[in-house]
């Protein structure tokens, strides 16, 4: 198989995963909620108007039909029946465009307009946290792996284990107590508002720290395991016996081999960072994607939940594809076979 075919297969399989997953999301959400039109019309609406709307939106159609229609709306092939039914009224909203996840009942605007800014904010936080996690995790993992069994390995591993055991909300609360209340060196809320004199970067410190503390241990553990496995391999022994310096053995011979598995793991943290950070965003009042998802879920804003879930799926699947491709690039054997 050549690389393009291989990549195409991978993307195709990712798309298939997306489809199945989106179907599951659709089924779960559309069926768990008591009544879609009741959701749209609000709790005080009358039964007859709900039924009329249901008919108008085709909510009584077979599941698969509704699902396909929904997908059609999402990819911009169809018009959103909620918009065309005139329920939203002015301001006029486009009924047909790519990425049309519908209209958020909670925010009273098209879902994309809600999600995109939140996603942007989260991307900012996620980027900072990602680099922190990757760098710290790799550093500790490499040191521990290279000096397996040493005192430094044991103590750093313990630190990583303990850090990974502290829930985000716990570290967030503690950090807040120390840095916001006691020493007042950092802002307590990270709403990205700079008028109060706290810079955006100062507001990112605490949430990013919470995420890094929670996650770096996991990365470090993976890197360490991979590193120890490599360090035990015959070719590392051979390299040492060839008379190479330990540093050269670690950096030239071990690292490249040891980073293959963790590379995937590290990349997959992106998926977690985009959507798995609800708690942190809630604690710091960060206007991000996780909070949107939580609020949408809690308020039963189906269109928004569907969009958020789907977007987090896309992110995860994209990182999976990226990590697969990266794995191919990192691994000459795979590269050659491709």
């Amino acid at each position, binding site marked *: 198989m050549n690389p393009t075919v291989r990549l195409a297969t991978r993307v195709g399989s990712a798309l298939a995963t997306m489809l199945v997953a989106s179907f599951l999301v659709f089924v779960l959400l559309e069926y768990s909620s008591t009544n879609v039109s009741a959701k749209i019309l609000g709790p005080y609406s009358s039964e007859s108007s709900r039924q009329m709307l249901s008919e108008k939106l085709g909510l009584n159609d077979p599941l698969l039909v509704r699902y396909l229609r929904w997908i059609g709306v999402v990819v911009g092939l169809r018009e959103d029946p909620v918009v065309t039914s005139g329920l939203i009224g002015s301001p006029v909203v486009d009924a047909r465009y790519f990425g049309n996840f519908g209209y958020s009942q909670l925010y009273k605007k098209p879902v994309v307009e809600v999600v995109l800014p939140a996603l942007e904010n989260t991307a900012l936080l996620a980027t900072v946290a990602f680099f922190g996690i990757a760098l710290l995790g790799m550093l500790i993992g490499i040191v521990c792996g290279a000096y397996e069994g040493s005192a430094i390995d044991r103590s750093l591993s313990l630190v990583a284990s303990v850090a990974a055991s502290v829930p985000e909300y716990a570290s967030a609360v503690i950090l807040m107590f120390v840095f916001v209340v006691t020493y007042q060196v950092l802002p307590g809320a990270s709403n990205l508002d700079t008028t109060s004199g706290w810079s955006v970067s100062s507001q990112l410190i605490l949430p990013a720290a919470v995420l890094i503390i929670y996650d770096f241990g996991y990365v470090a553990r993976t890197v360490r395991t991979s590193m120890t496995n490599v360090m035990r*391999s*015959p*070719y590392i*022994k*051979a*390299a*040492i*016996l*060839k*008379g*190479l*310096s*330990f540093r*050269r053995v670690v950096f*030239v*011979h071990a690292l*490249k*081999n040891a980073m*293959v598995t963790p590379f995937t793991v590290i990349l997959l943290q992106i998926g977690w960072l985009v959507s798995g950070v609800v708690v942190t965003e809630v604690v710091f009042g960060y206007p991000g994607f996780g909070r949107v998802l939580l609020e949408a879920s809690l308020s039963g804003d189906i269109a928004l939940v569907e969009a958020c879930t789907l977007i987090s799926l896309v992110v995860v699947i994209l990182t999976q594809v990226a990590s697969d491709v990266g794995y191919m690039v*990192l*691994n*000459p*054997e795979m590269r*050659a076979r491709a």
Partner: protein
Amino acid sequence: MDIVSSVLEVEALTIAYGKGRRAIEAVSEVSLSIESGEALGLVGESGCGKSTLAMSVMSHLTGGARILSGSVQVCGIPVNGLRSSALRDLRARKLAMIHQDPMASLNPRLRIGRQLREVATLAVLSREEREARIEHTLRSVRLADTHRVLSSYPFELSGGQKQRIVIAMALLARPALMLLDEPTTALDVSVQAEIVDLIAEIRSSSQMGMLFISHDLPLVAQVCSRIGVMYKGELVEIGPTDQIMNEPSHPYSRALLACTPRIAARGQRALLTGIDIPSKVREPRIEGCRFADRCSNARADSCLEEHPQLRALNNLQPDDRVRCHFPITEQADVPLQDAVRNDTAPAALPAPLLEADHLTRLFPHRAVSGNGQAVRANDDISFHMYRGRTLAVIGESGSGKSTLARLVIGLDQPSDGYIRFEGSKLPPSGRSDKVASAMQMVFQNPGGTLNPARTVGTGLRRAIRKLTNLKAASAVDQRARDLMLAVQLDPALMDRYPAELSGGQKQRVAIARAFAGSPALVIADEAVSALDVSVQASILQLLKHLQAQRGTAILFISHDLAVVHAFADDVMIVYRGKVVHSGLVDDVYHGPLHPYTERLLNAALRSERPILETTSDENTPVTAGHGCVYAQKCHRRLGDICLTVEPPERRAAEATLRCHILLEQLGRLSPRQRVMPQACNPGGTSQLAAQ
């Protein structure tokens, strides 16, 4: 350059694992030295401490090993306690090592060139010199296309090529001492022969000292001028190769020789004597001679109580030293025992137990061939098996011999052909419990043959319940104990997990399991190839014993021609899924030789001039029905006919072979072929007559 002539000086070296009372001595009081240009062989069973010794020379002891006393000097420099930079320098310039698994010692993610340059950089100065050196060294290990090799990743090279790279890497710095730790164990027989040949050549052409470590006595003998025999951490005998190979003085050296498989003369089969003591889990500590509990000559008083010293056997041969109270000095040239082979032609036998008829197994797989064509793992294989007889299948890795075993046992279904067992045709899948009970198998890898998560007894009892009519717990248990005893194991081992057993013990359990019912046929798929020779011999003895007792037919799958010669009655030589040569063992080994048989025998007998493969294009697929399967690699290829026309079946005595060459023009083994391969003295010439 140093003027010190001794490149390695080991003095009274003692190395132990662990600390305090739990410390286990892996190497005890070992002294030896190697002059430059000299090759010393170290042999011994696994766990005898030879690798630990080698690592101490490299000053790279791991796993909690420590030098308790003694010293190691390389080129006069004591390696122990060397500062790390000095140590690195020593490793880079003076030492080189080829490891147990040479394939794995290349970094899979760095190009060969980079890995070679890295080593060269440590030793050589200028860039031009470096490149020239690399080029030269690669040529010296017979790697031609250096440019391609240098830009390759390890996985892009064949096993033999990687091996050469590793050797080249070791040679690059022109070290004073080269350590080889089982450098050929992971290779196919024919490749093995080439590599050993290469090593011997390098040794003779350089001033390098060499420490060659192996469990394979004849192999070592081929390269080294002196051999040390190690047993449980001690050097029990050391002396010139001739002496060790022909007149060893230590009972252990002698026993090692006795259990080393060899191809006996026509009409005879080697009698292999095992020196394994299988029934005990761990040997007790012995005050006296460490070999005493396995020694047939041991005497209660001195051997058990007094530790023997390594001493010169006599004044005439100060080089030959032995650690034994009662070294064997008389009858020095007692010949290794052979038994008379009393073969009967299959034709004279009653109805066959199993008939395989035109078995074919296709793997329709792109992954294997790449061109979408089916790979024929087995192609039209037919044979008969008889009660009480052993049919051996010989082939190199990838020849389809394991597929054949799987077809016979029913783990795989033939694409074509069928198997008839006890007169009735077996269904392609879903065999009856009766057939399952009558046909069992012993596998190759002792590590995998037993379920590591279940005790020996649990597995054995399960097999008994499944393969016999016994159901009552006490009867099953009794049967299990009987079986344990039958394979010469202490029934107490039934409570153990496989991880607590030695390889030989595991293999015995596997045999016990195979004999849980009353199998008419047992398939042994490389059942002894992963074992030490001493253990291998006793397992073979055990199998023979069980076979004699129960009249079991054995399908013996092996790559080792010597073992097959000693063990089997009939033999089939398989190449790429096709039987190229088959018949009675003697008639195949001594009769007109199929070129492939010839090459295998040549390798097995370790001729001076191994027959090389004609083409190195290993990946050319064989298209079924066109020509001889071996044609592409055949050193005696006649011409296009071999490639295009399927060779005719030719019969020679009780053997059949497929070759275009006329019988009388095929090679033969000399009738008085000596059983052992020759040491590296130039006098020994191959008696394999090449056309």
